[in-house]
């Protein structure tokens, strides 16, 4: 239960998956996410986009501008722009707006130094190279027309807590409509059932089956997840099967933290486990799952699983997949030895008749280690489906 407590104590919202305690995932193909780069002592200020001034259009040339030599009024030759000719010399601009000062085009009066949030700029570290000056058309920049302006720094008003419409309509009706409106804009709940694997495995003399799927219900952040996976041979009882019920919480843009229980339903020793795991999308579009299982007999197991969808055409998709199971100790009645207990590799080519319905053909290879060592390859015929 210790990893449980640790994970629950950690503030998940601020965490990246790779910072999570207790979640080492040996053998994973997942590219480790990079640790946040140490911030340089001299922080780079946000270089705010400086509005580039008018683009070259004859229409943009007002009489005042023409008089200032900033542009040439319409003369039927739209490209006849004087370029930099009318550009005031640095520091000599009669009208130096805040934006231009920030760009270093002119010397601003002192008050423009206190630029409001949003326009703040650190001249020292500003990267002028990135500003694309070359693309600016100084001919029509309208320096002269820009009023002497420096956006103020008035505080915003306090946010009201009432509804203006309550003065016109029944406040109870407005309150209900407001709740509904907010719920409909981001608060919806959905559900999905997805089987990544649902297949028959044809192998020499002992055909079997394999499934791996999950269903979920909930919103963007909080979800109830049910996972199931299992395998077996035909004319045999279920080899091994399990069901997990998990609470899942989005902890960053790509990753979900999942905690709950797992119940084995096949096999000789039906155990119950506490589960803690992560599921998400790793760089290079790898779908990754990793989990720790602590059984009611005190045994610790782990599993990691990853696959990637490589698009061959718009509808033909090749999916390499790996699953590895680990045990922290020998488990005699399950014929498991400490260490890697099994390794599965798969390569499946599916055709998406629809996104939701994709028959596939592939190869499945499995290796078991320890007392139950064995394994082999099989032809996999199945359907990847969700609804």
């Amino acid at each position, binding site marked *: 239960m210790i990893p449980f407590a640790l994970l629950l104590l950690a503030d998940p919202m601020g965490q990246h998956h790779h910072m999570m305690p207790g979640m080492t995932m040996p053998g994973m193909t997942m590219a480790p996410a990079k640790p946040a780069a140490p911030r340089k002592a001299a922080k780079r200020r946000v270089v705010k986009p400086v509005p580039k*001034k008018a683009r070259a259009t004859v229409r943009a040339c007002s009489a005042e501008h023409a008089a200032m030599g900033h542009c040439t009024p319409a003369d039927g030759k739209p490209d006849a722009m004087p370029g930099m000719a009318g550009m005031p010399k640095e520091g000599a601009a009669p009208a130096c707006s805040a934006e231009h000062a920030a760009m270093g085009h002119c010397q601003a009066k002192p008050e423009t130094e206190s630029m409001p949030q*949003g326009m703040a700029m650190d001249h020292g570290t500003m990267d*002028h190279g*990135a500003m694309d000056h070359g*693309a600016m058309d100084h001919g029509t920049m309208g320096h002269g027309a820009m009023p002497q302006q420096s*956006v103020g720094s008035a505080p915003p008003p306090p*946010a009201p807590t009432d509804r203006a419409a309550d003065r016109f309509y029944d406040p109870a009706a407005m309150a209900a409509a407001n709740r509904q409106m907010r719920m409909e804009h981001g608060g919806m709940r*959905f559900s999905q059932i997805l089987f990544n694997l649902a297949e028959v495995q044809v192998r020499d003399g002992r055909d079997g089956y394999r499934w791996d799927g999950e269903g979920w219900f909930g919103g963007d952040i909080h979800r109830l997840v049910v996972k199931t996976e299992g395998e077996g041979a035909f004319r045999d009882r279920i080899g091994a099967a399990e069901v997990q019920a998990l609470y899942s919480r989005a902890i960053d843009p790509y990753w979900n933290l999942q905690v709950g229980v797992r119940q084995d339903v096949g096999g000789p020793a039906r155990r119950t486990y506490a589960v803690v795991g992560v599921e998400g999308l790793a760089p290079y579009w790898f779908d990754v799952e990793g989990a720790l299982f602590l059984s009611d007999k005190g045994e610790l197991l782990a599993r990691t699983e990853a696959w990637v969808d490589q698009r061959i055409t718009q509808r033909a998709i090749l999916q390499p997949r790996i699953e590895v199971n680990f045990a922290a100790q020998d488990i005699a009645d399950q014929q498991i030895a400490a260490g890697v207990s099994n390794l599965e590799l798969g390569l499946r080519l599916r055709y998406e008749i629809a*996104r939701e319905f994709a028959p596939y053909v592939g190869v499945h290879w499995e290796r078991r280690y320890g007392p139950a060592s064995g394994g082999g390859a099989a032809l996999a015929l199945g359907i990847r489906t969700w609804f």
Partner: protein
Amino acid sequence: MIDPKTAIRRRDLLAGGVGLTSLAALPALPAWAQGHGLSAHTGPRAELTGPDITLTIARQHMMIDGKPYHAIGINGSAPAPLIRLREGQRVRITVVNALDEESSIHWHGLLLPFQMDGVPGISFPGIPAGGRFTYEFPVVQAGTYWYHSHSGLQEQEGLYGPIVIDPAGADPIASDREHVVLLSDHSPLHPHAIFRRLKMQGGYFNYQKQTLAGLLTGKDQPLRERLDWGRMRMDPSDVSDVTGATYRYLVNGHGPADNWTGLFTPGERVRLRLVNASAMTNFNIRIPGLTLTVVQADGQDVRPVTVDELQIAVAETYDLIVTPTEDRAYTLVAETWDRSGMARGTLAPRMGMVAPVPALRPRPLATMKDMGMGDMEHGAMAGGCSPEHAAMGHCRPDAAPRMDHGQMSHKMRDFANAPGLPRTPVVQTVAPMPVDRTGEPPQGLADVGHRVLTYRDLMSAKVNPDTRTPSRALTIHLTGNMERYMWAFDGVKLNAVTAPIPFRLGERVRVTLVNDTMMAHPIHLHGHFFELVTGHGDHAPRKHTVNVAPGGTATFDLTADAEGDWAFHCHMLYHMHAGMMQVVTVRRDADKGAAV
């Protein structure tokens, strides 16, 4: 009720063109219906006018290219009828909801009391199933606008229509004839089914992804770039979330094969009132053989700008003047910006004529600039450093720092680049170096080989009503997570928002929208026009919707002059539905007396 002035005016507009039979049919076949296609299923649409209008919302079918689709319409018409008003009049519009669910109508771009704005939960309680609601407001502006449902996802089902408001005096935009061109997208799927699919798999509708087959035949990105993007878990082919894989693209409710046709007489100045009433689709508009003179944007007159192509984002309107001189047909091409489909119509001297329809051009792929990396990737820094600037010490042409790709991946979500932004799962990326992209052609139009409208080409025809310097600045981040299909302002979906975005009545605020995502977001503020800060001083273009380019910024000055509560949202319907919406409050200071 037909306003006699309007009726006369309409006749004037059409007198040049259609011929005696059409003239006789005028009352039944208003301007925008005149141009309907040849399909028998696409009957004439009503034009509603006068001080009293009744709209009845009901389920119906819509025929597109000969196939029936489920739809929601008004007075038996989907898209909904044209509402034609006159500046200075008052209008009473009674909306009868014959659906078995709540509904509403929002008047997109109209300046009116907030309690008539039609957003359930913000401006009023909504119109219950079987109920009715009377909107009443003065018409204080002129131009091309539109209206649509703001309930659920009904807008996707056909509940939208155009509004044309004629100026009180003479129209400064001279034309011999006009056509409304209402663009939209329609699917056989129920909109909730579309949204659910996006939630299950963000790229569900994208059948233009990069493939191994493409790599081997030298298409799209080279391997190294694909690996870079793969490391970032970003799909550069993700331009439009919902595509031609499910959508039919419509001109005035007609599919490409229906071929909506607008008539002209050679030599006429024809005004096209473009409205993009799509749920999710930005369109690239061109008419091969004609130049397009933009004379109005979002209902506000602009100084004429002549281009060959323009992109109209969701919820925008543009009025164009075209002058076809030849006695032949011209194809109105409205290609979706991800190039997964096309809406098509025809301008012709007579019904039944067609012109060649160009093929779809190759789809754009997102670039590092669309990821908010500024100009870094393409070495544009070096190219962007002109000798003059180098001389001024602004840049060093030889010192364009090469981007270290290894460094790039974790810079994609560095909160030092957006202080104050919460570290929620909604924030998949934070643009490291967003640049103002209002001077660039919109996504996918940089290399089309002809003139393309940019926002900076737009200048208001009139001096702006408020030219004060803003008293404060406000930055709003457009954030999202394409894997989880979550969208939000400032990292918080509306369902989790605890406080609105407050404004003081009468204050002027400079608002900068920073697009931290790789998708374009047409951002719409209800009840106001704002002035885009694009260097045109007191002739800044005034808009109600601004499309913020991927990884870019857009800045506008807003005079908060309309007291009340207003919706503020991305007009990509499913982005809004996923949470990219907020409430904007405009209130008097407490010491300045009572409210409204």
